[in-house]
């Protein structure tokens, strides 16, 4: 059974814009992206919207739906009442390009600042080996689809543009954690996480975890462990004393 859905879509660019009202016929079982495509096909042919897989795996159709950071393709219309008005805006933490499309290049700049995986030399037979429990630890982090919803909702940059140069954001703390927990990685990423990535700016209010469409426990499993690793290195006199007495950083033994 179809029904008319009331929507408010943000339209405009950096010079200005506003929410515009649309009413579009939708069907049971559809998602927000379907409704937007129908608006585009029937009422606003020049509506700009970024999308690709329609399966929640490419991370392209990130937007704010009723003020919350969500993937348009994974937000079911059945989550709302037939009388509800659905408001869709572009991501509000990044510069708008046009309509529902934003410039997320900040995230690619931050990705380039993060040193790549630097593994130990291979074993004598030319292979590198890891035990299963060490492999499993990083699996959760590799579910990230880079939709940047966590980056968008993080108030450190969302509400404070001036923090962008100093702060990498939750998506990249995930990557720092994944590599710092990797038994074959040779970098010590604790210093970088604090200085270059600005993990001290995070006040662990967990919005990144709340919006993650892959249900990655970003705060509990990546950010807090990285903060604790920074504490190991910088704020824990017992660990410091241990490294002085043994005259080596115990990272290689861990």
């Amino acid at each position, binding site marked *: 059974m179809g029904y008319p859905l009331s929507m408010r879509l943000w339209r405009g660019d950096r010079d200005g814009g506003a929410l515009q009202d649309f009413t579009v016929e939708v069907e049971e079982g559809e998602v927000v992206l379907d409704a937007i495509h129908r608006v585009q096909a029937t009422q606003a042919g020049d509506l700009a919207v970024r999308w690709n897989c329609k399966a929640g795996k490419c991370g392209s159709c990130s937007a704010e739906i009723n*003020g919350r*950071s969500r993937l348009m393709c994974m937000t079911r219309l059945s989550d709302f009442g037939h009388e509800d008005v659905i408001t869709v805006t572009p991501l*509000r933490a990044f510069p708008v390009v046009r309509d529902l499309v934003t410039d997320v290049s900040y995230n690619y700049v931050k990705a380039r600042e993060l040193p790549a995986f630097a593994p130990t030399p291979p074993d004598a037979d030319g292979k590198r080996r890891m035990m299963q429990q060490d492999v499993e630890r990083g699996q959760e982090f590799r579910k990230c689809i880079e939709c940047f919803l966590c980056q968008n909702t993080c*108030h450190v940059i969302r509400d404070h543009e001036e923090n962008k140069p100093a702060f990498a954001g939750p998506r990249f703390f995930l990557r720092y954690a994944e590599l710092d927990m990797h038994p074959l990685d040779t970098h010590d990423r604790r210093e970088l996480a604090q200085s270059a990535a600005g993990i001290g*700016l995070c*006040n*662990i209010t967990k919005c990144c975890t709340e919006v993650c469409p892959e249900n990655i426990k970003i705060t509990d499993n990546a950010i807090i462990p990285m903060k604790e690793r920074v504490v*190991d290195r910088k704020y*824990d006199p017992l660990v410091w004393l241990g490294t002085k007495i043994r005259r080596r950083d115990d990272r290689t033994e861990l």
Partner: protein
Amino acid sequence: MATGVFGPERASVEARTLRPDRWWLPPLTTFVVFAAFIVYSTWRAFSGDDYYAAPYISPFYSPCLTDNCVEGSNDFGSPIGWWGLSPALIILIFPLGFRLSCYYYRKAYYRAFWLSPPACSVAEPHSKYTGETRFPLIFQNIHRWFLYAAAVVALILTYDVVLAFRDENEDWGHMGLGTVILLANVVLIWLYTLSCHSCRHVIGGRLRNFSRHPVRYKAWTLVSRLNRNHPQWAWLSLFSVALADFYVYLLATGAFDDPRFF
């Protein structure tokens, strides 16, 4: 110049948030409950009275280490005998510091008291933000030291529960409603303490190589299981510690008689 979501490059939307749900309810609830606990615990900590009703001692006052402790309440002697204020003030600083620097409580009070942010995707009112990089919030990094101190306090509270199986004449084989309340309280306090993120890190999280440390890996998986419910233990133990103290207060003031099971 406008910044944040109102910055010149962002999509121009006048509202601080477009969320139609009651996003303000969780921070408001946290604010009211925490504020009530602060008022109650401040009153009880400074009162210096009605904290011992043999064989029960209030968790706010254990261990009682000063000369002005009520007779029978100082199981560990009076090593800080010169202290003239309420004996609770010496002890409470450790569990208080543990909870203030706790990763869950930080989230809760940053949202509820400092509105930084009040809720996800709701613009915060502050024009500047430096997170936990400067004084005083940089001291949140010493959470693990409070963990160690809080673990010692939890051990002492466990000892108090053992003593609560003695009656007022110090004969074993007693159990009253107070014993049950103190026991439930100490179980919740241990669950909260052991599920702490710093505990999870110290136990095994700091390792890079789980396979080389199978025992620590096993311990880490157990603590990780507890850690999933850390906020729940934080709330329940907050209520239980207040309830245990209030129960002892009722007994000490004679407002209530402890029902005895055996």
